[in-house]
């Protein structure tokens, strides 16, 4: 009998939850209106292939839709020169800010009523943090070899579309302190790895 009651309670609470989320559907709309939101962050290579991507919006529900978006963004920006300064374009009612570094293309997308400069600061944070984490070697090969760092970096910049941090040094610091290298005992590292770790520590102490 007790079990039955808890079961009823549970169904009730779950029903109650659905109706509430329906009722607050409007809020969701507002929330997107007022809080600066990032719709996706992309890191592609010089042929438009994925290195690492992260989507925060339901605008692209399937992988097919995402790939189509990446393809279109890449085609549209490919011929521009976004190396010295971040570039920007409007695209299907999205604002895309982007920056290239060797064979890596960084993109940050927001809705067309988003503050462009906020998006640009996210892009700056991302590309600079990747630069620090890859020790200046910002290229596809290096990025894939350190994909764990790139993914952690994405995780530290934006959470569910909300900007977590835009300062590249802080982002890189949070990622690097957790990287596998520093966690493993020194004896297990090869000489070159140990050297790299040492270099990194030095770099970080200089940055402070």
């Amino acid at each position, binding site marked *: 009998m007790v079990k*039955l009651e808890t079961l*009823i309670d549970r*169904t009730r*609470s779950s*029903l109650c*939850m659905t*109706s509430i*989320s329906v*009722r*607050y559907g409007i*809020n*969701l709309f*507002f*929330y997107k209106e*007022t*809080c*600066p939101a990032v719709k996706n962050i992309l890191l592609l290579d010089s042929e438009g292939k*994925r290195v*690492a991507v992260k989507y925060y919006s339901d605008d692209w529900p399937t*992988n097919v839709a*995402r*790939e189509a978006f990446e393809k279109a963004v890449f085609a549209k920006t490919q011929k*521009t020169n976004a190396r010295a*300064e*971040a*570039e*920007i*374009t*409007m695209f299907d009612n999205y604002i895309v800010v982007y920056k290239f570094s060797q064979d890596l293309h960084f993109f940050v997308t927001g809705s067309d009523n988003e*503050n*462009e*400069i*906020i*998006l*640009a*600061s996210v892009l700056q944070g991302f590309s600079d943090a990747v630069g620090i984490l890859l020790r200046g070697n910002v290229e596809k*090969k290096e990025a*894939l*070899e*350190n*994909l*764990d760092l790139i*993914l*952690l970096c994405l995780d530290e910049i934006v*959470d*569910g579309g*909300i*900007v*977590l941090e835009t300062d590249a040094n802080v982002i890189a610091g*949070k990622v690097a*302190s*957790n990287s*596998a*290298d*520093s*966690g*493993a005992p020194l004896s*297990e590292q090869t000489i070159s*790895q140990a050297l*790299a770790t040492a270099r990194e520590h030095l770099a970080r102490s200089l940055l402070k």
Partner: protein
Amino acid sequence: MAQPLVKKDDDRDDEMDYSPFLGIEKGAVLQEARVFNDPQLDARRCSQVITKLLYLLNQGESFTKAEATGVFFAVTKLFQSKDIGLRRMVYLIIKELSPSADEVIIVTSSLMKDMNSRTDMYRANAIRVLCRITDGTLLTQIERYLKQAIVDKNPVVASAALVSGIHLLQTNPEIVKRWSNEVQEAVQSRAALVQFHALALLHQIRQNDRLAVSKLVTSLTKGSVRSPLAQCLLIRYTSQVIRESGISQTGDRPFYDYLESCLRHKAEMVIFEAARAITELSGVTSRELTPAITVLQLFLSSSKPVLRFAAVRTLNKVAMTHPMAVTNCNIDMESLISDQNRSIATLAITTLLKTGNESSVDRLMKQITNFMSDIADEFKIVVVEAIRSLCLKFPLKYRSLMNFLSNILREEGGFEYKKAIVDSIVILIRDIPDAKEGGLLHLCEFIEDCEFTYLSTQILHFLGNEGPKTSDPSKYIRYIYNRVILENATVRASAVSTLAKFGALVDSLKPRIFVLLKRCLFDSDDEVRDRATLYLNTLGGDGAVVETDEEVKEFLFGSLGVPLTNLETSLKNYEPSEEPFDIHSVPKEVKSQPLSEKKAPGKKPTGLAAPPVAPTSTVDAYERLLSSIPEFASYGKLFKSSAPVELTEAETEYAVNVVKHIFDNHIVFQYNCTNTIPEQLLENVTVIVDASEAEEFSEVASKPLKSLPYDTPGQTFVAFEKPEGEPAVGKFSNTLRFIVKEVDPTTGEAEDDGVEDEYQLEDLEVVSADYVLKVGVSNFRNAWESLGPDCEKVDEYGLGPRESLAEAVNTVIDLLGMQPCEGTEVVPSNSRSHTCLLSGVYIGGVKVLVRLSFGVDGPKDVAMKLAVRSEDISVSDAIHEIVASG
């Protein structure tokens, strides 16, 4: 042994295409994931395997449910390891796998342990992971820790909790709302991003409480918000408060000073946010605009493309409403025409086109001509649209602008681009009489070498309507007949129709047209031959009895009288039978456009395109539904169905709305009922209608609803008789009556005995607007003139003080229930007068057109002149009565 992930060989330059993930396979990686179960965990190796799994997910690979569950359970074992790096990867993969509720339980305790760990990094990440995967019940258990975390002295932990709060507010608002004290404390945090996240959450908790938001803004705009991101948020909230409060008695705008002070902030994002907020203020004055325009102007010459783009995009918007305010920036704008970034260049050009004055047009056109060759089609379309509006603004300059359009028409381009140009030329021809002859010739030249069948047919159709009215119609015949010789069947057929139109209107050309049409009788295509035969017949070319001139013209030029999409659906539904297709059976109602379509920019139907017509599936559905009910089948043709009117508040036990179906002699109320109580089953549901305040109506039938289970909408109907063709109005009060039975929620079975019960619904009114159908016309002026002044009624009305002109216009449109034409329902902000054109069909099938002229009189008083033309003077009177009594 797996390949080491981090491989730092010196000989790597030899193999350029080397990727650590080369030849990676899902099956193999899932096998590798077995290392997670080793009693002696190799943290490094495990991290590598997780990275591989994440790589697969990131590349779009999907795991089956079983695979994901398997990986998830294996990953949970890794909480045993103390390795920090591995733990981070574990957090990451748990979020990516988004485990189901019963799986979450496995990791809950591990994550809760981490949430209370002494390591800040563990705490912050465990909070984010747990909040991502948690549900309502678990949330109450960890709520205490989250509240602590919000005020944690480590900013990373506090931010993690606050951001998680923002996400959770969507699903569990009642829990998150209990945290407002802690969030309020966090707003005062010294850490920049904590302040930002706290402010975002606090505002969302309170956003439905205007007073609280206003207080929040008042206190924070005085204090010092440190983070630029938080400052941007505050600017957005301030705009919201300004929007809701309006201008104060003294004419000062509250918080304007704050926005202006933000223009001097040191962070660019704040300066821009403030400038944008000022330009978007409703009813902004030029004095208020000036400082914002000044900072945007500085951005125009920035070295950063993002800043230039942001500034030029905002100024472009301002130029639509306040072109004068932007003219100061014209010199900077002109230098942007050569900007490397073509988006910026296009925005600069279109802004210049909006702000330019008559004297600068020629110079501007020269610059644009050079520019057009090296931009993409999509940008060219924007420019063409801007040139079109410029030409409408300075009709005297039509010559150079029309030349420009015809030049670019001859160049290479895709369909959308060509269509934009053709549409623009057509609009210019319509609105600028002087431009007509030249424009038509440009179009004729274009179809000589046009690869798009659609555009050719559209131009031929337009030519048929306009060409005969020009001074020398004969010069177009050659172009048209060339199409009959050279083109595909579709274009040939429409060229035949165009020839016929010339024949009908220009008597001197008739014999020549007959010769040409007779040649078409030998065409290889059925449609072309049929048309030629038909037109020869109607025009009397083969010696047959000629129909009257009026009828011929009506046949050739008259509109179908039904929206095309409706006709299309009706034709699709028509099954070949003995009975011929009857065009009168096609519904005439124009459904309002779906919102999404309105939002899409540049999709406004302009030029050749027909007036907005949208799917009519609901009307069809209603008609089918009603004719399937024997009681109502004899009522004849459905004239109109209203939009559903809610008769209950949202979130009540029973949700009821009503749709009014108007017939000639009858009116049927369709009550759509939904039962929102899972423990109840309703039976024998009826609506008891008291029509004592609606004297002309008498109830004739009612159709109860047998059973209304939980969450399954059902309908009950009540029908009334009313005087034929009369727009009878009245008020009806409604009561829902039913037998309620308890339902056992576990078995879903209802008890046998029920109790009779009643539920009071809100009143329902039948108003005059219910007797007017929304039917658009494609060319209001033509339609207006063809109705003539015989049945015209003009009168003036004072509407009293109104919130805004737009509000007054919308009220009158809603009151009349007619279709706004040519986009005149949109009132530009700040305007003091407005003309709105409406069209519709009154009950009995009488066409009605309305021209409304609004003017603002004094501070807020709105006056209106109403001119009505219809086919029947009594209907014109009736429309005036609607307004007079409304």
